[in-house]
């Protein structure tokens, strides 16, 4: 169907297009409503994710949505998140090979704990002893279940409202949340204003007890540490031309409560040699205010569609970041497409981030060696292939991505033998997502 900019389109053509647009805007990301009744859509995805020598995740998700002709929809989702592998503890490379300082063995029962002390690989054993320049890792495994429900109700044909509820649970973390969104279309539905807010009440109950921050690790038993998260979002999206859509949204999040990573440590080092002499638990502030502004643009070329977005983020812990994300969708046939994807992320470190503390010096109020609050960059390259099986309902997608995370691992403040080590070695990550969507 051609709608040329000069020739007059037929009435029927115009009507058809207007109808398409109306129906599509009423039910975002859901199949076109069949005028004769409700539609059920089922989406399933499976994520297989693996970091080289570190964390591995398998995450299946199923979502079921019931869309009414009125535009009202209700959906429910279940996610299962199975995680294993090893993760950095925050400790620095030891500088010496010390078989009595082997990796902590697999997770312990709650009351009696053990350290990496005497006995080296005793009690279950660890798989490898870190070399002098290796970042110490700790083994873990956990399973998380998350349930999600969302209800969307168009109030009039320019107002839309969405309510959502969320619950997730894993061995040491529980999250309950609710959110709401209002969207308002105006200027002939070419502009949409969205206002949203959400609240979460999370609890953290670390295995073995909650270690006191910046301490030798003495634990407080039976604590359910609370963490409240409140967020608000304002968004404006606008159709610029027939091919071009832009959206800007800003959000602010406020966190209050237990924000420390209970399993992470900060190394103490001997400034003369650079060897680690011990470690203390990390400690973070109990509040965090986060803001971000994200601009997205969608542009339809002759046949390809470009999604380009930039997000600028900052918070009161000193972290600032820029994210650029680019996707180009190229249809390869009636019902299949290829979509390459590029993403680049760069962040500056938190104010209280440190690679390690000097033994004997006074301990600061807050300190963390968690690389995720450090000076890091992430680069992603991926490709999605989507297709329909002929004569069969539903769309399949398969996406393979490679992620490289790297950081500034040679700080000027490195001492002794630490100067020879990469304190934030690059991590190679691969992920595969398989998805299937069908509506009936």
């Amino acid at each position, binding site marked *: *169907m051609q*709608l040329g900019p000069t020739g007059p389109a037929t009435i029927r053509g*115009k009507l058809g*297009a*207007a109808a*398409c*647009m109306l129906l*599509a805007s009423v039910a*975002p*990301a859901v199949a076109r409503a069949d005028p004769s009744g409700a539609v059920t859509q089922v*989406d399933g*995805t499976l994520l297989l*994710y693996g970091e080289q020598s570190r964390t591995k995740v398998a*995450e299946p*998700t199923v*979502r079921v949505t019931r869309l009414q002709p009125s535009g009202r929809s209700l959906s429910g989702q279940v996610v299962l998140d199975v995680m294993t592998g090893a993760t950095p503890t925050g400790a620095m490379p030891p500088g010496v090979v010390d078989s009595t300082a082997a990796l902590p063995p697999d997770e312990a029962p709650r009351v009696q704990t053990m350290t990496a002390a005497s006995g080296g690989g005793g009690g279950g054993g660890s798989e490898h002893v870190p070399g002098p320049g290796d970042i110490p890792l700790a083994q873990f495994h956990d399973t*998380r279940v998350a349930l999600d429900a969302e209800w969307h109700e168009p109030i009039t044909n320019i107002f839309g409202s*969405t309510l*959502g509820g969320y*619950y997730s649970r894993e061995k040491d*973390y529980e999250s*309950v*949340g609710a959110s709401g*969104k209002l969207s308002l279309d105006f*200027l002939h539905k*070419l*502009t949409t204003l969205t206002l949203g*807010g*959400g609240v979460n009440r999370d609890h953290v109950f670390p295995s073995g007890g909650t270690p006191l921050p910046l301490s030798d690790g003495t634990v407080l038993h039976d604590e359910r540490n609370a963490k409240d998260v409140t967020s608000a979002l304002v968004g404006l999206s606008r*159709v*610029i031309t*027939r*091919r071009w*859509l*832009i959206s800007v949204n800003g*959000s602010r*999040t406020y966190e209050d409560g237990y924000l420390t990573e209970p399993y992470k440590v900060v190394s103490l080092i001997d400034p003369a040699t650079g060897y680690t002499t011990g470690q203390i638990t990390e400690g973070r502030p109990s509040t965090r205010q*986060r*803001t*971000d*502004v*994200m*601009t997205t*643009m*969608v542009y*339809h070329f002759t046949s390809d569609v470009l999604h380009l977005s930039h*997000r600028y983020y900052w918070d009161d*812990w*000193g972290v600032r*970041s*820029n*994210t650029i994300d680019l996707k180009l*969708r190229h249809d390869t046939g009636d019902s299949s497409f290829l979509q390459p994807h590029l993403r680049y992320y760069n962040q*500056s470190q938190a104010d209280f981030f440190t690679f390690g503390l000097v033994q004997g010096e006074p301990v600061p109020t807050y300190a963390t060696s968690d690389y*995720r*609050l450090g000076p*890091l960059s*992430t680069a992603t390259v991926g490709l999605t292939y989507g297709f329909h099986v002929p004569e069969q309902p539903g769309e399949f997608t398969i996406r393979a991505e490679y*992620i490289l995370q790297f950081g500034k691992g040679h700080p000027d403040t490195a001492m002794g033998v630490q100067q020879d080590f990469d304190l934030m070695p690059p991590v190679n990550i691969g992920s595969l997502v398989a*998805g299937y969507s069908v509506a009936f």
Partner: protein
Amino acid sequence: MKTVRLLTPANALARAAWLAALGALLTGCAATKVKPWDRDLLAQKKMQLVTHPMVNAIDEHIYFSKEGSTGGGDVGGGGCGCN
């Protein structure tokens, strides 16, 4: 000591693009030229801001666990013990 270089190349480009987009958004002069019957392209699923919400949610979760930033999309969803 933290040094944040706000005018790195990626940043400068991004800023320029952002300002251009904001300008287009706020002036809105082009908007009235798009008539309802010109919405053929816009109606397509692939023109949505988020084309595959579930894959998008997976990405948000991955990057939330690996990086220090959040946000940029939506409210809703919840916490996890991964950061």
